[in-house]
């Protein structure tokens, strides 16, 4: 069996694991929602339920199928969800797919740029810190990384907002447009700087410390010592020999970092009033809007699973020594 085929089989096996996980997670959410004392029909009527005719309430209960067994309701939801119909959001009075469709693009934009920047920062600062091990540069980089890891991301966001948007007024601090301006590339780019920077800075420390640690370990490996013995300059040894081998475990960790990234994005979006899914998530939670909240949670889980799969496939592609029967 060729290696390409083996990697394909690995991907298939991981997908086969992802589908039951998604089913279990969505079913568990469904059961939790049903177990809560909350009743969507009462919520729909609000105080008007006192004056509403019992027939009308009963008809609505029958239409929505609230009194059917959980499994039947779950099956109805699942069959609709597969066709793209995720039900209606009670809090935003829109179909769930429309709510997500409107907002997902903005979140993906923020997260992808922020994650890329965090990776670049992590590689750059981590390499610098390891290269100049024990120097003031190394100490200040690792020291600030520990401090940043301890700081809540929304607190950092507020600090950045205060300094750069309110005091210095260099950059706009919230949303994606100023006033009633139409959405433009330049405007969005200017509005993106602060949230992206905060997301990247809050995610980077972990990568910085990881790259530094791995590089320090690889400095003791034979091929690196050999390269130094041949008299190659330091920068060639670091970038060409040490960094290459120490980056391999980095790939799988990218996947493992996705849940933290989603959490960080949720908080950064809230601070900067970014029009992504965070606002909808909080609204859904406050208004017990399970259709929306459940869809968002299942979606985030799916993203994490696919991210892990991609990371494993990349790892297998990058390192021919990796065994594929895990």
């Amino acid at each position, binding site marked *: 069996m060729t290696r390409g085929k083996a990697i394909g089989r690995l991907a298939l096996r991981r997908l086969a694991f992802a589908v039951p996980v998604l089913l279990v997670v969505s079913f568990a959410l469904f059961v939790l929602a049903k177990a809560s004392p909350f009743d969507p029909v009462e919520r729909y009527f609000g105080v008007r339920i006192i004056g509403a005719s019992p027939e009308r309430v009963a008809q609505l209960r029958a239409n929505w199928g609230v009194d059917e067994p959980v499994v039947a309701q779950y099956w109805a939801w699942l069959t609709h969800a597969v066709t793209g119909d995720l039900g209606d959001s009670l809090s935003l009075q829109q179909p769930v797919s429309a709510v997500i469709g409107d907002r997902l693009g903005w979140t993906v934009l923020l997260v992808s740029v922020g994650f890329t920047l965090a990776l670049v920062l992590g590689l750059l600062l981590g390499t610098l810190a390891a290269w100049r091990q024990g120097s003031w540069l190394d100490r200040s980089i690792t020291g600030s990384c520990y401090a940043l890891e*301890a700081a809540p991301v929304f607190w950092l966001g*507020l600090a950045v907002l205060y300094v750069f948007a309110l005091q210095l007024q260099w950059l706009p601090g919230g949303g994606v447009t100023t006033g009633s301006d139409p959405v433009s590339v330049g405007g969005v780019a200017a509005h993106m700087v602060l949230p992206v920077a905060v997301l990247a800075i809050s995610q980077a420390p972990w990568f910085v410390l990881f790259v530094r640690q791995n590089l320090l370990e690889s400095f003791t490996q034979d091929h690196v010592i050999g390269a130094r013995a041949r008299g190659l300059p330091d920068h060639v040894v670091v970038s060409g020999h040490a960094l290459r081998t120490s980056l391999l475990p980095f790939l799988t960790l990218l996947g493992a970092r996705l849940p933290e990234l989603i959490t960080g994005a949720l908080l950064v979006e809230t601070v900067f009033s970014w029009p992504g899914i965070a606002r909808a998530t909080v609204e859904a939670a*406050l208004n017990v809007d399970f259709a929306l909240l459940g869809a968002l949670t299942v979606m985030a889980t799916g993203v994490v699973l696919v991210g892990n799969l991609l990371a494993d496939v990349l790892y297998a592609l990058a390192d021919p020594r990796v065994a594929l029967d895990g």
Partner: protein
Amino acid sequence: MADLTWRPAPRSRLTAASPPRSPKWRLLPSAVVLGVVALVVLVVPLFVELNEQYVDLAIANQPPSAAHLFGTDELGRDVLLRCVYALRVSLTVGVVAAVISAVAGTAVGALAGSIGGWFDRIMMRVVDAIASVPHLLLGIVIVAILRPSLSAVIISIALTHWLTAARIVRSEVLSLRTRPFIDAAIVGGASRLQVMTRHLLPNVAPQVLLATTLMVPHAVWHETALSFLGLGLPPHAASIGNMINDAQRSLLIGGWWMSLAPGLMLVITTLAVSGISGVWRDRLNPKRRTELTW
């Protein structure tokens, strides 16, 4: 003609990681900070006749001064005093949630590790499945179901954080099971329960205790994030997240101290806790001296 003069090689730092500095340097400041925080948080509310909810609109929005070291908030409440109470609430939530999740995780991990077979496989797949849901989102769902309250926040943290403990305990139990003293106990006629309570659990206890300590900052962070989103403790309760949430409004009119102070308190306490647990971990697993706390 090539330059044949010998020159010493420039000093390079491409060597193995320098040995960590004496743990004293991490232990001492962390212990002092944690001691002061514990003293203030535990003792001050008992002896000081001050009310952190005391409203005095005449002194609202005052910047830090000698009378109010961290200034006052939009209702004229002393920010320093509120920080002390907030830290008390947040740390209590963190410790209680960490202990609950450690107990739950230990139970699941020990059962999975010692029973093994299909039970182990199913339990670990469940752990993997829960771990794929972003923690904060799962926490939000749980709070939405139970409605925001102190117990909802604690349950939401406990339900999302027991996974780490379960994984650690399971792998420890699996490696302990192959050791001769367990075989000896079984041969000596010990029941499954006796092996578990007398031999397995006492040996995983140090690791569990360490994991619990490391979980506390994470749990506090989780509580803070939920409260910041408005899904945590009731709005009037002084918690770090609520204080930063309230301070957002004052930030627009220049009140930087109202969000700076609670965040700073949290960062310092978190660093002290991870400093102490870092030294502890290095003593417990001297081979795995990683610098990553999470």
